[in-house]
């Protein structure tokens, strides 16, 4: 009890129910009279819809209703987009396609039936006449004048062009002392693949005029507002509950057409309607991530100091905007300088419509792309100038004294010590020893690669001025008459473990046992307001709101205790279930103060009865966690297969509240990042058919493909919030991808390899090896 709870490897409160299969996900919800919904989806990437024949589906056993786009037109709002970008074109996005389909998997009709199987079978009986149109799959071709236009009413396929400039890149062109390095990187399209697919249960009760929606979502409050708007209901008539959510990685930071349809069907039928997404639907019709083409020009002094960076980003947005689709690539521009104070920068981001599923936030959301660009650039600089990649980085790091550091991109980094994390990871990896081993093995014809990534990310999203729907978060702490504590948070975790970390914050602050604190989240009737869980904001913004609410509660309790003890409130500390003076001479039990506050017999004047306080925390800035990773890979000279031999990560997410949760985030994040570097890729063929449509074809990594990740931390606290925490949910995904690619390129240096686009599949490497050997 005496040891502080914060900073301890406290076991997760969530795990007993989850590992015993006793949690309740959306699909576990069973309601009397519940119906099931299934969708008929477009087989074509781009086609006009002719007639839709639904008679056979309507007549199929168990079918209650069939809806097409025509049936819902004007009765269900558009799928919303919240991104605010100047001049952004927003195509109308119906929950069911009306006269045209724009990607394979777009919902065309919905069937509601007595069982899921009946609905699925009937959905397959719906016949849609398509008049196929030429599909636009490649974003660069979509920009060409002669390209077919996906949304004719918008004129062309350009959704937006955003420019970000700082310093003066143009002046660098005349400077002949500078070396100019050019590069083109492709950041391939990925699928988030959360273990639990999407799912929704909508239950409209006509009597109460109340729509209750259970959804596998990261943003119940945003979803509630949007579903209320789409269904023309007062928000008071709409309740959203996020039960257990089995992973999201950003893909559930959204409002989907299927959610709208479940609500519409339940409203029309007066019965609960459930839709559970299949895995094939998940790969086709849940948002995708990444998908950028980056063209770069880098200006470097002969000593390795980078003085300018120009980048064109072509972002493949897919056919429609989901909630934040266009905003994601703008984060790439914002973070393109990484942890280097490069004085001149120019980034042009072009968002392009293509006949594919929308891209949107996938773990890291725009920042993995930025880190990949700048960290590959640093290795290219090292390559061109024949320098060690460590030296190039050290040369370009700002000093720890430079913080807060305003960058020409317009962001201000809070605190950092990049040198410290890099030195620490080099020590952990035994960097100079590895270089010697690499030299030895090369002589034997074996290819070992050592790759670095020194990253910085933008987290704790964020100041409301920069966030489309606000960036604050809500927290409430209540103490019940029995002395137990209830915590409410507007964030909505899906694996992060905040029932644990928030309980740690509150138990630590109130000096009570961890088991006395219960954290609730995800129900809009329970938690009055909230934004949600994304952008590594849960602890830094949501945790701070709770910390502040608890602070208010402590102030009140201290006044009551002081009144009882005859001391000043400022003299009291909360520890070991007591509220007492530092020396322990005057002391009162925590439970006694609770009883006094609630039963209100001798409250000091001006104090209201009860112990419940809330706080809405508005951060003044983002936070900027950082770190340094080293990947060690072996390339099989015969097969081109890459084995990740060692992985070392030093991450700095500010103050660490629970090292086990931080480790978990890093491990999972690194796994997904390595997945992008080596295996994962969503592939559409030239006609816009998704040909990686199952987990047999889309290569999600398996545990046996990884080595153990050696993780450590440095701790550079942020002044942006009183807890000093920065956020860690996306760090692994942001930091690790370039480390692995840098390692593979490093391994293949003897073959003259300068760059290879991801994923680094054995076939690609094998071809290089074969060609190289021939040369």
């Amino acid at each position, binding site marked *: 009890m005496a040891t502080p709870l914060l900073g301890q490897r406290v076991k997760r409160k969530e795990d007993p129910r989850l590992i015993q299969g006793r949690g309740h996900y959306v699909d576990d919800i069973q309601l009397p009279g519940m119906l099931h919904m299934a969708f008929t989806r477009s*087989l*074509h990437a781009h086609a006009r819809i002719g007639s839709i024949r639904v008679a056979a589906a309507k007549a199929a056993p168990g079918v209650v209703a069939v809806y097409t786009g025509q049936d819902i037109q004007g009765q269900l709002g558009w799928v919303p987009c919240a991104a605010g970008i100047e001049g952004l074109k927003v195509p109308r996005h119906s929950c069911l396609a009306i006269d045209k389909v724009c990607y*394979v998997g777009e919902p065309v009709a919905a069937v509601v039936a007595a069982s899921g199987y009946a609905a699925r079978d009937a959905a*397959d*009986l719906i016949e849609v006449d398509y008049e196929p149109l030429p599909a636009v799959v490649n974003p660069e071709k979509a920009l060409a004048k002669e390209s077919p236009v996906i949304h004719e009413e918008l004129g062309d396929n350009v959704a937006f062009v955003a420019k970000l400039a700082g310093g003066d890149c143009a002046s660098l062109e005349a400077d002949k002392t500078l070396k100019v390095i050019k590069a083109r990187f492709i950041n391939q399209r990925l699928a988030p693949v959360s273990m639990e697919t999407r799912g929704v249960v909508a239950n409209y009760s006509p009597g109460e005029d109340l729509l209750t929606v259970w959804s596998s979502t990261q943003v119940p409050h945003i979803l509630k507002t949007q579903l209320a708007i789409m269904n023309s209901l007062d928000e008071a008539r709409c309740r959203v509950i996020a039960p257990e959510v089995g992973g999201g990685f950003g893909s559930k930071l959204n409002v989907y057409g299927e959610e709208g349809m479940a609500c519409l069907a339940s409203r029309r039928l007066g019965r609960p309607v459930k839709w559970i997404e299949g895995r*094939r639907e998940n*790969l*086709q019709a849940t948002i995708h991530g990444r998908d950028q083409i980056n063209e770069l020009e880098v200006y470097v002094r002969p000593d390795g100091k980078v003085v300018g960076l120009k980048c064109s980003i072509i972002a493949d947005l897919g056919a429609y905007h989901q909630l934040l689709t266009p905003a994601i690539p703008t984060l790439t521009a914002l973070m393109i300088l990484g942890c280097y104070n490069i004085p001149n920068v120019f980034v042009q981001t072009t968002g392009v419509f293509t006949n594919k599923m929308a891209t949107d936030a996938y773990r890291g959301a725009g920042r993995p792309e930025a880190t990949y660009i700048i960290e590959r650039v640093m290795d290219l600089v090292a390559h061109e100038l024949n320098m060690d990649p460590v030296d190039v980085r050290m040369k370009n790091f700002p000093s720890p004294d430079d913080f807060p550091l305003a960058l020409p991109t317009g962001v201000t980094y809070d605190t950092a010590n990049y040198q410290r994390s890099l030195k620490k990871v080099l020590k952990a990896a035994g960097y100079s020893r590895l270089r010697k081993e690499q030299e030895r093995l090369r002589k034997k014809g074996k290819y070992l690669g050592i790759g670095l990534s020194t990253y910085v990310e933008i987290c704790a999203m964020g100041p409301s001025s920069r966030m489309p729907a606000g960036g604050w978060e809500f927290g409430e702490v209540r103490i019940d008459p029995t002395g137990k504590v209830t915590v409410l948070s507007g964030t909505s975790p899906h694996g992060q473990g905040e029932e644990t970390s928030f309980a740690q914050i509150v138990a630590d602050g109130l000096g009570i046992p961890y088991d006395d604190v219960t954290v609730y989240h995800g129900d809009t009737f329970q938690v009055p307001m909230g934004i949600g869980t994304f952008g590594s904001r849960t602890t830094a913004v949501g945790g701070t709101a709770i910390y502040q609410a608890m602070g208010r509660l402590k102030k009140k309790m201290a006044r009551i205790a002081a009144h009882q003890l005859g001391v000043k409130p400022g003299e009291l500390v909360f520890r070991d279930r007591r509220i007492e003076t530092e020396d322990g001479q005057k002391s009162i039990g925590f439970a006694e103060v609770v009883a006094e506050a609630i039963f209100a017999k001798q409250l000091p004047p001006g104090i209201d009865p009860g112990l419940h306080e809330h706080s809405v925390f508005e951060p003044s800035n983002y936070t900027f966690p950082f770190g340094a990773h080293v990947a060690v890979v072996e390339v099989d000279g015969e097969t081109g297969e890459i084995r990740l031999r060692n992985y070392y990560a030093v991450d700095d997410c500010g103050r660490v509240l629970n090292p086990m949760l931080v480790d978990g985030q890093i491990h999972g994040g690194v796994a997904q990042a390595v997945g992008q570097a080596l295996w994962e890729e969503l592939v559409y*063929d030239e*006609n816009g*058919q*998704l*040909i*990686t*449509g*199952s987990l*047999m*074809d889309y290569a999600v990594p398996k545990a046996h493909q990884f080595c153990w990740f050696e993780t450590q931390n440095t701790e550079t606290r942020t002044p942006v919030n009183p807890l000093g925490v920065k956020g860690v949910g996306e760090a692994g995904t942001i930091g690790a991808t370039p480390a692995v690619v840098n390692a593979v390129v490093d391994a293949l240096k003897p073959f003259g390899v300068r760059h290879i686009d991801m994923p680094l599949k054995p076939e690609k490497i094998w071809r290089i090896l074969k060609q190289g050997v021939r040369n």
Partner: protein
Amino acid sequence: MKLDGSYTIPAPREVVWQQLMNPETLAKSLPGCERMQPNPDGSYQAELKVGIGAVKGSYQARIEILNPVSPERYRMKVEGKGAGGFVNGEGLLTLTENGSAQTLITYSGEAQVGGVVASVGQRLLQAAARQIVSQFFQAFAKQVQAVAFPPPSTDPLIPSSPR
């Protein structure tokens, strides 16, 4: 998806051509063909049961023969759709005499596949298509042989050789 190859039928070109234009023979040769009927416009409507890996399904296909140049070549256009997706293909078949008793059929074409078959069966698609084509030609060769060289009849009332 591109498809090309060739197959040798041990029969004279005229006979092969006639059978290639004969819907009954085609129906018997097409793997999984349940039905094939002529449409008023000269095309054919067929019902095919095809399995690509785990994706098995029934397809309604419209088969059209274009620009026939007897007995040398024709183009074939196939538009099939079913619950598993759609297949649209067009190809050229060329018949070359290989001596007097053999005919070389060369085919080349392109097919566009959509739906579940495209997204799930992609890895198997090329191999499966090749297998279907090969099954077709094997069965077709048998059909042609039956016409060109019918087996001796076992019915005592029918003469054993029509030639």
